């Protein structure tokens, strides 16, 4: 029948049309000195004083400056501040460089630092960064290049997280209707920074383009142009890296590590994360988890190295306390709860639960929040069941789960991970182990006192001694199933020289192209 053939022909022509001319496809970001970075999500705002989420602050780190920077071990390096010291028990003084300029030529001065911190503290701003500058009571600016943070009490740690607070151009902000007390919303899409990369354009969820700042005080960065192009799906992120459409991808799932490490065009880079995963016992709610012996027994019943090996492809490090070894306050003398099922059963019997009889525990966990969160919870439930007790998992979406964590409503066991980029014990212990902390489900007045003492102890040796004591209590009381510190995986194209950092930050001025 003639019409059949003609229709077939036109269909074939259509197919050919849609496929034609696509053979010679150049990778995106074609210019040689352009680097494309693909995180899972797009930044949400260019106002650097509002949010705390990593994919957003990663862009801010490259277009704004901070008073200091952290090196890979968390040590503070001079940046806009050339030096800092405690000049009185409650006064931290920063001396600023004189040659830092915003892109519009405005000099960066102490007034800009003061404005930035005050804007964060301004209640009408609704900034999530409030907790970072909570210890800074007020700010003095004796001259244009000296800033003083005044705290209510002497603090051991430097005040105000100066490696995380971005400095904005106060003159530019005021010109556009943004001052302490009111906001115009203009900054959300029109940043004016002093950083190594100049913001050029941004189409949301598509790409954000930045160009090297030729006049940067620390020298012009090596890579001419950096494009931030988000790709939400991990498999698609990996595919885009393999085709060279992007040069750097974050949050690489462990199952891709062999493929990417052995790739023609790709390489892996990883770092010990500042994030520690744990299962907490809710000791504030009734149940066998209120018995210390039960908590210790369950710590002996789990085999953390086996979970790291099988679930995370070896990409994690077991911890003996809530602190990873590269943190201030870490105590290497504290032993690990090694896997010992016999001991676990003996402790359970001693606690009144022979062969695990009478133990029926729900293990709560989120899904899609942490690397392999659900799988880890399921593995833990399996291992704990070896004691003879009954363990089941309850997995929930993060948005639902997080509401329960706030109300201490998850019981008797729940999974969380804690990222602390101060590399200091205070944030972790205060947030997770003091009686009145929102996320703490453990209460011990003796421990509360030690943690507060350490916070205000300015002699490092004495402070470490207080932490040693605190960690001994935590280890013995076992309010957690102690798990591991993650290792973060990134992958890059082979032409890009850049190494991963444990704090999840990406500094593009550290990048070089081969």
């Amino acid at each position, binding site marked *: 029948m003639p*019409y059949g053939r003609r229709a077939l022909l036109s269909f074939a022509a259509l197919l050919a049309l849609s496929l034609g001319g696509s053979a010679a496809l150049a990778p*995106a970001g074609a210019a040689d000195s352009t680097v494309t970075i693909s995180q899972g999500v797009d930044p949400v705002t260019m106002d650097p004083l509002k949010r705390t989420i990593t994919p957003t602050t990663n862009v801010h780190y490259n277009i704004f400056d901070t008073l200091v920077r952290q090196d890979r071990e968390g040590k503070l390096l001079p940046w806009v501040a050339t030096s800092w010291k405690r000049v009185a028990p409650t006064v931290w003084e920063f001396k600023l460089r004189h040659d830092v300029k915003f892109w519009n030529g405005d000099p960066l001065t102490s007034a800009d630092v003061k404005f930035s911190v005050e804007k964060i503290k301004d209640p009408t701003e609704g900034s999530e960064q409030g*907790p970072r500058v909570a210890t800074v009571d007020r700010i003095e600016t004796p001259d244009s290049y000296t800033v003083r943070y005044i705290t209510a009490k002497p603090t051991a740690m430097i005040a105000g997280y100066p490696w995380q607070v971005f400095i904005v151009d106060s003159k530019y902000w005021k010109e556009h209707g943004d001052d302490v007390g009111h906001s115009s919303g203009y900054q959300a899409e029109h940043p004016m920074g002093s950083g190594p990369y100049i913001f050029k354009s941004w189409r949301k969820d598509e790409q954000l383009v930045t160009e090297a700042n030729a006049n940067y005080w620390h020298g012009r960065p090596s890579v001419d142009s950096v494009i931030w192009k988000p790709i939400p799906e991990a498999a698609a992120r990996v595919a885009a890296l393999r085709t060279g459409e992007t040069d750097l991808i974050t949050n690489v799932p462990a199952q891709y590590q062999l493929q990417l490490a052995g790739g023609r065009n790709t390489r892996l880079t990883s770092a010990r994360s500042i994030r520690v995963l744990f299962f907490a016992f809710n000791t504030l709610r009734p149940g066998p988890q209120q018995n210390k012996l039960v908590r210790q027994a369950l710590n002996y019943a789990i085999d953390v190295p086996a979970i790291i090996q099988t679930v995370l492809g070896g990409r994690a490090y077991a911890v003996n306390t809530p602190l990873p070894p590269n943190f201030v306050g870490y105590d290497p003398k504290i032993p690990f709860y090694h896997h010992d099922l016999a001991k676990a059963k003996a402790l359970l019997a001693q606690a009144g639960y022979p062969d695990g009889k009478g133990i029926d525990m729900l293990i709560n966990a989120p899904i899609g929040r942490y690397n392999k969160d659900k799988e880890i919870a399921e593995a833990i439930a399996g291992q704990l069941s070896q004691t003879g007790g009954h363990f089941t998992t309850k997995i929930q979406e993060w948005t639902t789960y997080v509401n329960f964590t706030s109300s201490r409503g998850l019981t008797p066991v729940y999974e969380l991970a804690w990222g602390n980029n101060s590399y200091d014990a205070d944030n972790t212990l205060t947030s997770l182990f003091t009686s009145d902390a929102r996320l703490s489900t453990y209460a011990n007045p003796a421990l509360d006192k030690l943690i507060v003492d350490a916070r205000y102890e300015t002699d490092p040796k004495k402070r470490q001694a207080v932490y040693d004591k605190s960690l001994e209590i935590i280890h013995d009381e076992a309010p957690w199933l102690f798990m591991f510190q993650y290792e973060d995986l990134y992958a890059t194209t082979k032409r890009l020289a850049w190494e991963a950092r444990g704090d999840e930050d990406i500094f593009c001025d550290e990048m070089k192209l081969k």
Partner: protein
Amino acid sequence: MTAFLVRRAIGAVWVVVGVAVAVFLILHLTGDPAAVMMPPEATTQQIAEFRHNQGFDRPLWVQFGSFAWAALHGDFGNSLRHGEPALGLALERVPASVELAFSALALSVVVAVPIGVLAAVRRNSLLDLAARIFALIGQSAPVYWMGIMLILLFGVQLGWFPVSGIGGIKHLVLPTVTLGLFTMAQLMRLTRASMLDVLKADFLRTARAKGVQPLRLLWHHALRNAWLPIVTVIATELVTLFSQAIITETIYAWPGIARLAVQAIVDRDYPIVEVVVILAALAFVAINLLTDVFYAALDPRIRYE
């Protein structure tokens, strides 16, 4: 016809109002965004302050009242996540979504209708068998899986198409095929079935007996009468395309409104979710209305009085 349109437009307003009320209640009854939005080390007091500043501590009916009043003036509030007006954020993603949805629909129609017709005409031929197998795969393969497979084959192995993002025609190909496949399969089966019905009809036999040219017989007499169910499905498929776009836009990092919606739900960004749902309701109402009008144009026997 005018009276009909006016009636339908009034009905449409009620649908949108109903949707707005429902989405507001569902969002606000399932908890507020404070815990998701605030950093983990925030204290209970800081969270309470955030809640107060955002007005989440007011009675629900007060919150709804101020939402409805502002929405009537085109103000859906600022996105909690972005700190910018939610309506603008949503509207700027519409073109990308429309581009993808319509190209997927166009591809489906252009491929599915001719093949469906041919499969009906040459029933039980090799072509018919191939078309049916293709339809089976197209309808049963999950969009998610199909998307990844297309990326691996045409992006990574063959290097024909870019694997993510928006750009020229080349960027459009893989997402269009992924999104269009399900609809294509659906339409192909329907066209085939509809044509099979019509081909058996008396008037076709009469036409054939009159000596009408085969091609004219098929396109003019048969397909014209088989169109009605096909058009209905094309319209409803547009709705399906929007929901499937949630997955397609995520896999291909397509900057559309569905991806914005997913992220907003994850963050409990109320204003964005409300705007997107209301915009979707408006779109669906408009599509349905257009379909009804289109019926009348297609089939002279249909008249709205």
